[in-house]
């Protein structure tokens, strides 16, 4: 029996939750090792050895150490191609994989930057008792709205972003979108668009994501 992989970081971290969702979709056993960021554990030398940028998550699988959530997800899918959701990263179809990579990149380059700023400004800053920046909020709301116009058209052509199956590309969006919908109380960003709303409802109610949310709730209690 394989040793469970190790994921380092708090489950409420968007990037950590991206990896957790992938592990759950792929039915890969894991151990979640908490990192106390309030105490600066992620900046200490022992942690910097496995994540030199001092960010979460970090990941270990037997002898290998990885970081960057999207690379961890791809690694999990390639190593465990036959487990769990086999089509999550395109299965054996290189064209499906290319489309998934394209939309993972779109998430990372176009969706993530504005939505990350909004998640920080609207969800985390208040909790951390930091002042919000109204200009940054407005700027990034506008950027995100433009991105979601593209998504609205795309999701009128296919059920999910990369095609008609749920994939890593959709999964990559779950963490930031979830915070915008629940903590930041901005559900209308997605719900106001017919296809995006349909897509959000479908991807956010997957069993794997529900489990991640349970883990986040448990950790914060």
């Amino acid at each position, binding site marked *: 029996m394989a040793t469970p992989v190790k994921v380092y970081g708090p489950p409420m971290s968007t990037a950590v939750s991206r990896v957790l969702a992938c592990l759950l979709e792929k039915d890969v056993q894991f151990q979640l090792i908490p990192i106390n960021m309030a105490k600066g554990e992620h900046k200490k030398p022992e942690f910097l050895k496995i994540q030199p940028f001092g960010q979460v998550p970090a990941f270990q699988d037997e*002898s290998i150490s990885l970081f960057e959530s999207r690379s961890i997800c791809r690694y999990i899918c*390639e190593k465990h191609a036959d487990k769990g959701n086999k089509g999550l990263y395109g299965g054996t179809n290189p064209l499906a994989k290319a489309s998934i990579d394209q939309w993972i990149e779109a998430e990372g380059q176009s969706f993530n930057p*504005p939505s990350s700023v909004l998640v920080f400004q609207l969800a985390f800053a208040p909790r951390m008792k930091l002042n919000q920046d109204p200009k940054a909020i407005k700027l990034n709301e506008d950027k995100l709205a433009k991105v979601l116009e593209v998504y609205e058209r795309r999701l009128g052509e296919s059920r999910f972003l990369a095609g008609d199956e749920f994939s890593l590309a959709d999964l990559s969006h779950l963490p930031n979108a979830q915070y915008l919908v629940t903590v930041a109380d901005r559900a209308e960003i997605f719900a106001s668009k017919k296809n995006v709303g349909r897509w959000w409802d479908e991807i956010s109610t997957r069993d794997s994501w529900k489990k991640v949310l349970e883990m986040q709730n448990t950790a914060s209690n």
Partner: protein
Amino acid sequence: MVLKLYGLPMSTCTTRVMICLHEKDLEFELVPVDLFAQENKKPPFLAKNPFGKVPVLEDGDLTLFESRAITAYLAEKYKDSGSSNLIRHENLNESAAVKVWSEVESHEYDPVISQIVYQHLVAPMVGKSTDQTVIDANLEKLGKVLDVYDSRLSNTKYLAGDFFSLADLHHLPYTFYFMKTPWASLVYDRPHVKAWWDDISSRPAFQRVAVGMVFGGGGGGGGGGDGDGGGGGDGDDDQKK
């Protein structure tokens, strides 16, 4: 069937793909997109990339956008072509390291360096004023990123290991432009980063592409022509990625 690449020879994201094509010894047709006339924001280009950015690759019936998805596709499809194995597919640990450092380029390096290149080189060309505070903030961030790189490259010859890979290749376009700014010393002052840069920028595939990486009159191209001048992402949220 010839590969078609839509973009411009001075665009950072287009050249990222061109370098990969040359590393794999692949023939392709570069189809110019008139960014200055906003061709990228109009149909029929939007049918190829709904985000209205270059480059786009056409390979038979397949149309792909996002330069790093295109390079991953080419490196995999043509893994036995050309002289370089850019993705190390035969070794799970090596291919994982390539993925890690490709993401580092995407999320730690590119958002920072692209802002510097945009403000210093592109903004003046498109009639905008340079915002020195943006440059200064990103120079500080870049210094910290390059400290991590210098440490990494003291252990391995290239970013993912002792082999050149897509992870290194993705850095070439923006770094080339950055080295033309007044702040090239950020690279030169870090011995391992300097050695790495000297090595990867002397590769023949890159040299062929660098010839076209000049700004003429008429603006458009350059760092910003691929859409925005980089990803933003300017919160210092450690959880961000």
